[in-house]
């Protein structure tokens, strides 16, 4: 019956990400291409950082526990920095691509705005990162056993799924904030992204004290989400209109369609 755990964890970890992909990315082929390219860049960063970590581990003494723990911390920090570096690299690539897209389009305007690119990049980084974290855990959750015979927590699968979910969403919001910071040359935004990324990754060293890693991660996600929303052109008024327009659609009091802006 641990098919139940398999499907449950898969839906927890990838449910919102799948919904985002299906409704916002899948319809537009250009967004799909950007998404896949972003995933590829993340994979490159993972390859390089794991190469460095692998060499460090092989060159060191396997029995020295403190050294191995130190190497792990170093590996995590190096990987986070490399991921953000590749995000920057991808931003630069997309900036150059914008000129090409403008030249190719009929209206003289790029079909994809830099904000949309930021969002798709973040989602791409997030989903591939989540896949890599979660896939082998999902595969092992199919068997009859659960974690715990050596003393680990039996909630390992569920907490891993929730952690993956929060990392996917965080990556999406980080993408938006990061690109915004690079666009406006506001380097504090970029540094905040890197710092929060390091913080969330560092908090996972507190596992299996899951309260110490999951709850702060979700708080940070809410903060980043709010920030990304405001950076993307949202406002409290829009939010109110959205909620009320849904709510009182029948009365036609607040129409859901805007009158003047053209629909994209």
């Amino acid at each position, binding site marked *: 019956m641990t098919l*139940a755990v398999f499907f449950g964890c898969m839906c*927890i970890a990838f449910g919102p990400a799948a919904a985002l992909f299906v409704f916002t990315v899948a319809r537009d082929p250009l967004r799909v291409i950007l998404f896949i390219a972003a995933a590829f860049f993340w994979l490159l960063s993972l390859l390089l950082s794991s190469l460095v970590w692998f060499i460090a581990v092989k060159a060191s003494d396997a029995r020295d526990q403190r050294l191995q723990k130190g190497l792990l911390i170093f590996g995590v920090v190096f990987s986070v920095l490399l991921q953000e570096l590749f995000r920057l690299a991808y931003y630069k690539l997309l900036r150059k691509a914008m000129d090409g897209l403008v030249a190719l389009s009929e209206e003289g305007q790029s079909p994809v705005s*830099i904000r949309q690119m930021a969002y798709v990049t973040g989602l791409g980084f997030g989903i591939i990162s989540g896949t890599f974290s979660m896939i082998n855990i999902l595969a092992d959750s199919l068997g009859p056993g659960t974690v715990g015979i050596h003393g680990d927590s039996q909630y390992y699968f569920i907490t891993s799924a929730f952690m993956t979910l929060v990392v996917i969403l965080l990556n999406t919001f980080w993408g938006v904030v990061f690109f915004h910071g690079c666009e406006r040359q506001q380097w504090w935004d970029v540094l905040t992204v890197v710092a929060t990324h390091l913080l969330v990754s560092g908090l996972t060293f507190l596992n299996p004290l899951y309260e110490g890693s999951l709850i702060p991660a979700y708080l940070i996600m809410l903060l980043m989400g709010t920030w990304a929303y405001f950076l993307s*052109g949202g406002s409290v008024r829009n939010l109110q209109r959205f909620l009320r327009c849904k709510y009182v659609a029948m009365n036609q009091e607040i129409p859901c369609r805007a009158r003047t802006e053209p629909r994209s």
Partner: protein
Amino acid sequence: GLSSSNSVERKIYIPLNYTAPCVRLLNATHQIGCQSSINGDTGVIHVVEKEEDLQWVLKDGPNPPYMVLLEGDLFTREVMLKLKDTRRVSGMAVVISKPNPAGGYSPDLRCPNDGFGAYSPTHSPELAHCNGTVWNPFGNGLSYEDFKFPIFLLKDENETQVIKQCYLEHNIPVNGSAPKFPLCAMQLFSHMLAVTDTVTCMRRNSIQARFNLNPEMLCDALGDYNVWSVVKPINNSGTAEPEEKFILAATRLDSRSFFWDIVPAAESTVSGFVTLLAAAQTIQKLPDVQSLKKNIMFVFFQGETFDYIGSSRMVYDMEQGKFVLNLDNIDSFLELSQVGFSSNFSLWAHSDPVSRRNATINQQVMDLVSVVQNSSAGTNITVAEPPNSQALPPSSFQRFLRARNIPGVVLTDHKSSFSNRYYQSVYDTAENLLLKYPRELSPEEALNHVTDVAESLTEVATTVARTLYLLAGGTQRPSMIKADPLTATSRSHLSFLVCAQKIFFFYIWRHGASNYLRNTPLWYYVSVSSPATPTRLVQYVLANLTGTATDLTKDQCQNPTKDAGAEKDLYDYIWVQGSSSENSSEPTPFCVETTVRLSKALSPAFELKEWGSTEYSTWTESRWKEIRARIFLIASKELEIITLIVGLVILVVSLVGIYFINAKVDVLFTSAREPSTVAY
């Protein structure tokens, strides 16, 4: 499957590496042994150390099915019949008893090889089905039952401790109430491919072979090779003349137990063939043995446990003229059965009452017995006869009697029922034979130490050698013949029973094949892959003890021709590793010229394709894909359902939410100050 486990798998499962399964064997009409589901059987572990613990498994426990961890003392017929048919048991792991169970233990039948020997209900009803004597009174017959769940043996104490620790931490019921999840569980994989009986399985095999490019065989016939040798070389490519008479000295090479391939067989098998090897060596050394009137043949039959595979095949080959002898050439028969308990120095000479109704045979048997008794003079052995109306114990001689009335005796250490209380079980070890080496001996010193058991078996070997010499027409004084206790019995004991990798083996092993030997005892199950290691070892030891060294080179040895002085028809040539001389550490290999040969020991039922035969053995062993065991924790069903529901809720909420957000994206996000960008 995975070749190496990743770290998450290591967090979940602890593999059990020192286990032995119970596998499925089939004969013409039945299947015996154990079976698991194709994806393994899982159950919550429950340790049963006394009979009261069974109640939890059978009735009270709230989380069936259970995986029973049974102490070896409780592995009895009553307990197993209770557990056999209930759905609440999904498997069993048996902890091997250390020391051996006090009251004796034998999972074999009380009447072994019934129906395939010399006594049938039509022919001699007063002796068939062990009417006169129950040979194995300790037998509970468990080996021949059919179980629907897997049963494994736990060989290693440390692993058993790990399992019990997991049980104590998670599965103990508190005040009779149910233990809380997560619970400790075990999963056993031993899925057997064959079902029903040999007829069905062989039929399916032939269908596979005919219609499938990659035929998937379901079972294999049990069988291997018999080892035989003659004192005076005979032409192997022809058959012996009718005037040539042979004295056959026989014993068996195999045994079995409840669990697959854990067959120590110390008293039931090893004692017999070690003694016969010693007798063969003694005879070969006699100066006038080549000019004796009759020839002596030593035969080591393989597969006798399973309805006399080896001996029935040899008799069949003799009847068909496919062997170097015919039944007419056999003058008399001497068999060594279980002789390990001759420490009280008495040997019993059993004979067949039915054939003795013929006056000629009766006279020949009486002469045979008196020769044996005369040969034991001067040793510590006394030879006596059990009552004349008693049947022969289970022995290869019975198959020869089925075909022809031949005079013969079977020598054993028991007067009526077996004195071996652990017949064909995992407990028939060196400890059963009371084989003891002083602890302070180093391995080299142990090789030169003669134990009590070795001494008494040497006396038996001396008696047998003298008997054979006299029967073959020898005229010298037999009291001069003495078996060597060190070379033959003691070293053989050490190697065959305790540790196969002993130096004794090293210097006679075939050059370059030392990877067969491990630092563990040998197992004497006939198995399906040929040739089995014990067969090979007995072949080479016999060759070493009775053969002569030659100075042929390696090439000449492996391709013997007349020019090099090799007689391929009379002898077999083996290139052996040799012993290391004092100067060099590398052993010097050389070529041994020997009359030792192998003859096929596969039941005639498989040659004749009579899968349902009641005349010949039809035993087959099922094939399987994987056999392994592991323990882990299982979570409660509630936690699993909660996980699934939470996941589905999150999925549905996010799908609905994102759909609505996407539909009204222009409401949520207004384009700000960027002129060149398009709003979402």
